[in-house]
């Protein structure tokens, strides 16, 4: 798409090169022009570069998006075995950038922590420490994040044997120092540390919160995640490009379609394959419906947590209706596996458009009912307004995206900032709020439901009635079955695709779309074989959860429950 090209064309990297040459870092950072402007730097210069990238008026990369480790053990032509790859976004200039830090030390790969520059880096660095064994001197809390504390080795290293099992016992639980102290202070009753979760009805999935309470007030908290870690990234390395799709579905299982679209877009960009208009629009329509469902689940579940059960049932009725439509398209309701690299698994059914229009009519009625029930309800207002406040500066520093960031007053929406598919052709608004509290997040989500309905309506209007949904490049897409049964060449293409997978040119790519929770990014590295060499997901609720312990500090336990609901943490995506 044209917008992608402008975002990744050389002016951005030219500017970066110019500014770097004028800075004290001149000659120590190399800028290259890949899909994104890429800066390569030695580990020792990384904190200086980080500060430069954040503070330089021409750069201002203030949003820390992702840190991915890469193990180049089996990849030809890489200078060092390990490297750390960071993705950043500049809100002021609306562009992405990549920083690559090759780590020369094989025995003890290490790079300084940039937690002081971008607080969001905290959890990403812990993740890289856990899965790759990178050391981050200067990090405040460098412990394992996704794997448990009795785990030995680093799971994403290429020489780690995946068959090993490490058993975890209760005594292995790492208790932070602050939780061990007896909290007696002058003028106070003794504070106590309790565990909320891992299996708690309000945690929606399995999340463990260790909190020190002073009466009802949370003095300090730490989130322990990883209970649903199922090695998505390691599994991806073992499978073909298309075979990753069912795994990607299970990241954010509430809006599985969006994950699939995000993933296959990355692969399609690496291949240079174009999906026909009809295929793209069907993806857009179903993604927007998925977003509505995701917001409905988030709002509904959040309200259940604070005691309003009826709204949940009304919102879920939409979800049921949408899942029936999804099932008619692809044969499954929740984990859809509908997209394929180069298009869709199968064309939509004949009654697709009327069924979509029917949904477009029924969804607003339920949303209105929900608004009547809760919008001006004082209990809801008292529980949500003024609790879980995130200021604009905090939201940016913590690397939040999606409704969380927009509710804090930053109108960053990937569909607007980096329009993919047909989003630049639709007329819609980005809802923002300046309040930053739980109620603002609820308002942003309900407004986004309306905007999504608007987008779907316009997409249905321009959806071609007939036409292919798949690319006709049969080195990527399976040929039609009729041809496979009776035509030798088609059978050969079919065989090559199934047995060897799609051969994606060697290289790397970061593609990002607007997931229901925020920016959903996939960083893929290919070495030219049929499957990914490395696939890193930037799950949008990961920074949300990292910020959680800071948001709830000082608040009450009941507010913590309400806040957890509006963060919309989906454990499948958080723990991968």
């Amino acid at each position, binding site marked *: 798409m044209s917008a992608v090209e402008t975002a990744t064309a050389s002016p951005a990297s030219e500017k970066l090169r110019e500014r770097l040459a004028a800075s004290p870092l001149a000659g120590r950072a190399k800028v290259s022009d890949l899909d994104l402007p890429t800066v390569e730097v030695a580990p020792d210069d990384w904190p200086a570069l980080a500060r430069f990238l954040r503070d330089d008026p021409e750069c201002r990369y203030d949003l820390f998006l992702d840190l991915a480790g890469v193990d180049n053990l089996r990849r030809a032509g890489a200078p060092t075995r390990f490297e750390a790859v960071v993705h950043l976004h500049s809100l002021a200039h609306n562009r992405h950038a990549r920083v690559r830090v090759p780590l020369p030390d094989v025995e003890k790969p290490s790079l300084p922590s940039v937690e002081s520059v971008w607080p969001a880096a905290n959890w990403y660095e812990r993740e890289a420490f856990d899965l790759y064994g990178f050391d981050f001197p200067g990090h405040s809390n460098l412990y394992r994040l996704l794997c448990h504390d009795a785990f030995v080795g680093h799971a994403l290293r290429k020489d780690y044997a995946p068959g090993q099992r490490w058993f975890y016992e209760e005594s292995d639980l790492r208790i932070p120092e602050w939780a061990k102290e007896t909290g007696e202070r002058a003028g106070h009753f003794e504070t106590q540390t309790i565990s909320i979760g891992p299996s708690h009805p309000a945690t929606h999935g399995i999340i463990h919160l260790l909190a020190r309470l002073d009466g009802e007030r949370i003095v300090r908290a730490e989130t322990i995640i990883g209970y649903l870690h199922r090695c998505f990234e390691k599994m991806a390395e073992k499978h073909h490009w*298309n*075979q*990753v*799709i*069912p*795994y990607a579905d299970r990241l954010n299982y509430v809006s599985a379609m969006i994950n699939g679209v995000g993933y296959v877009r990355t692969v399609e960009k*690496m291949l240079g394959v174009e999906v026909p208009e009809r295929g793209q629009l069907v993806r857009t329509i179903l993604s927007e419906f998925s977003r509505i469902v995701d917001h409905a689940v988030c709002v509904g579940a959040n309200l259940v947590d604070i005691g309003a059960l*009826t709204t949940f049932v009304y919102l879920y009725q939409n979800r049921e209706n949408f899942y029936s439509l999804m*099932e*008619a*398209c*692809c*044969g*499954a309701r929740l*984990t859809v596996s509908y997209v394929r690299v180069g298009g869709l*698994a199968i*064309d939509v*059914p*004949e009654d697709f458009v009327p069924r979509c229009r029917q949904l477009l009519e029924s969804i607003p009625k339920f949303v209105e*009912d929900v608004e*009547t*029930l*809760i*919008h*001006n309800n*004082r209990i809801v207002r008292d529980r949500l*307004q003024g609790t879980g406040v995130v200021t604009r500066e905090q939201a940016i520093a913590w690397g939040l995206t999606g409704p969380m960031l927009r509710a804090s007053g930053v*109108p960053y929406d990937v569909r*607007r900032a980096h*329009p993919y598919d047909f989003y630049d052709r639709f007329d819609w608004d980005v*809802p*923002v*709020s300046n*309040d930053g509290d739980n*109620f*603002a997040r609820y*308002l*942003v989500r309900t*407004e986004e439901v309306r905007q999504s309905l608007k987008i779907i309506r316009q997409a249905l209007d321009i959806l071609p009635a007939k036409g292919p949904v798949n690319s*006709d490049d*049969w*080195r990527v897409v*399976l*040929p039609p079955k*009729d*041809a*496979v*049964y*009776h*035509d030798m*060449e088609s059978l050969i*293409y079919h*065989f090559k695709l*199934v*047995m060897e997978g799609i*051969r*994606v*040119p060697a290289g790397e790519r970061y593609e990002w779309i607007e997931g229901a929770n925020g920016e959903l990014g996939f960083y893929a590295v290919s070495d*030219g*074989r049929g499957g990914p060499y490395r696939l890193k997901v930037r799950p949008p609720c990961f920074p949300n959860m990292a910020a959680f312990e800071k948001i709830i500090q000082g608040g009450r336990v009941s507010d913590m429950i309400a806040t957890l609901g509006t963060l919309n943490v989906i454990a499948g995506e958080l723990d991968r």
Partner: protein
Amino acid sequence: MSGVVDVSRSGSTRLTFWQRLYLPAILRGMAVTIRHLARNLTDMKRLPTILYPERKRDYSGRFRGKHILKTREDGSLKCVACYMCQQACPAECITIVAGEHPKVAYEKYPVVFDIDMLRCVFCGFCVDACPKDAIWMTRDYELAFFSREEAVFGIDKLIEKPGLPVKDGYGYRPYYPGDGTNPPRDASAVAVTPGQGDRSLLREKGVPLPSRDAGPGPLNAPSQAEARS
């Protein structure tokens, strides 16, 4: 493209005196719930809930449920044990052991064809991968077991029994009558005969075929050469 809408200034962030009283808001809420109750009581047919298991949800002809192994007219399996579904399966739940078929024309057949239903993710990749139209899926989703061993379905549980109706009807399959993409309203009732004919016939029918030389494309030439050597 359009602008940004500020929801915080929509005028509703402050509650009025009446709203602060709580009771009017709850009465309006009650009106909504009572409306729903009345509608559900008077129009039971449109109830969103289903009295399972007495009634079942109507699934489409694409539903991905339990697999079924298709047979030839003589009752032998269509499967030729080419291992393509086993290779395509992302969950690695299919196990095939190939054998030599006594009938020369059939050459190869699966001695063992196991699907571990506990591992299966019902993605339908096996159906897409099959070049022989030998594996379909049905709309049977009632798969419950007492043990792990029971969950591994062999040929005896997967094969289509001649003369017996398929439980809940056929679901996801690679090929439908007509243009091959759209299942008819009740896909289970319609017999499917895959199209017959050679290349020219397929062209006449408008089935797109790959050209003999697809030209340079996204294929990665060096690694292909590497794979050959």
